[in-house]
């Protein structure tokens, strides 16, 4: 039961984006379409799970004074792997996400989970935690991506979903739309929580 809890807490209760407001830069920058959102989400999930495994295995060998630089090196190595693999196999997605792939290193969700969870728990729990948080992150990115792509382009994953008489609200896929969408989603969550 507790294992299930480690996995599901990332979706709603401790959702990294909507509840804890972590990892905001990629959240807002890459959610102009669902495809980018999914790509970013899975890349971050892979890094999160892999670095959680390693940090959990190494937790007894890393002196606590230098733990943050050590975590950063582990995370940066996996980010470099993701960067190179994406560049080789998914060049169009790599070009679209651009700068934000190397910037997964400084995504506070990953360092946060390493420090708060993986450095204190065993490998099995750390994998579940990483997977849950990563998929929670992907889930939030996808929600934002769906809303912005439908409003801003009338499309979903590149297919038209709204009648052609719909005038796309271009602002939704531009920078301000990202801030507005996230603000309104957070307000709705607050509203639901109160009830």
């Amino acid at each position: 039961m507790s294992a299930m809890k480690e996995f599901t807490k990332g979706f709603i209760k401790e959702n990294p984006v909507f509840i804890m407001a972590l990892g905001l830069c990629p959240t807002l920058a890459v959610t102009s379409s669902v495809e980018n959102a999914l790509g970013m989400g899975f890349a971050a999930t892979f890094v999160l799970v892999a670095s959680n495994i390693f940090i959990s295995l190494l937790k007894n060998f890393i002196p606590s004074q230098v733990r943050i630089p050590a975590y950063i090196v582990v995370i940066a190595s996996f980010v470099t792997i993701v960067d190179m693999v994406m560049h080789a196999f998914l060049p169009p997605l790599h070009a679209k996400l651009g700068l934000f792939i190397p910037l997964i290193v400084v995504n506070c969700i990953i360092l946060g989970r390493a420090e708060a969870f993986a450095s204190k728990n065993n490998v099995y729990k750390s994998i579940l935690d990483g997977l849950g948080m990563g998929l929670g992150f992907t889930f939030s990115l996808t929600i934002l991506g769906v809303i912005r792509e439908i409003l801003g382009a009338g499309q979903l994953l590149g297919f038209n979903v709204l009648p052609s008489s719909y005038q796309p609200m271009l602002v939704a896929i531009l920078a301000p739309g990202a801030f507005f969408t996230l603000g309104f989603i957070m307000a709705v969550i607050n509203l639901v929580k109160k009830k």
Partner: protein
Amino acid sequence: MEFLSRIFTIAIASIFVQNYVLSRFLGLCPYIGVSKKLDSAAGMGMAVIFVMTLASTFTWLIHNYILVPLGIEYLQTIAFILTIASLVQFVEMAIQKMAPALYKSLGVFLPLITTNCAVLGVAILNIQSTWPNGDKFNFIYSVLQGFFAGVGFTFVLVLMAGIRERLDKAEVPESMKGMPISFIVAGCMALAFLGFAGLKF
């Protein structure tokens, strides 16, 4: 003359047209997290300008004199984040020893800057940026881009803090209080900055 006009282009581009926070989405965590009070926003801004300028200097040198000659550009991410992390640590120790008064006002913000993605972002952009004729940014332009990126960050951070101090006294619907209204305000600011996109030189 070309030198001056290029500097001017870098300044306008990093502060207004492609503002690091509002149009490139870099450094949002401190933008939302440290903008509750005007004086702490100004302190954070100063620390970021300082670190960004230094980080641009060192990462450009490391990339062009160590990574490129050895043919290991693919280690860029690791090399840059380690440079920035150690730089922040050294700056913190140096300021603490040499200028205790400055340390009192900037000290608390320095550790936070390591995970500010705008610093790593500007370091990588310095390497990737080119002029319209295909030239890469040289050392001086990279350092200046770092400096002006910091200025642009500070500019919107201080504006945001000013707005949020007033928001405290405004009547905001219950469920919009705190984070949601901050994002709506940020959206309005981004909308205003979108107007600069038309600037051409």
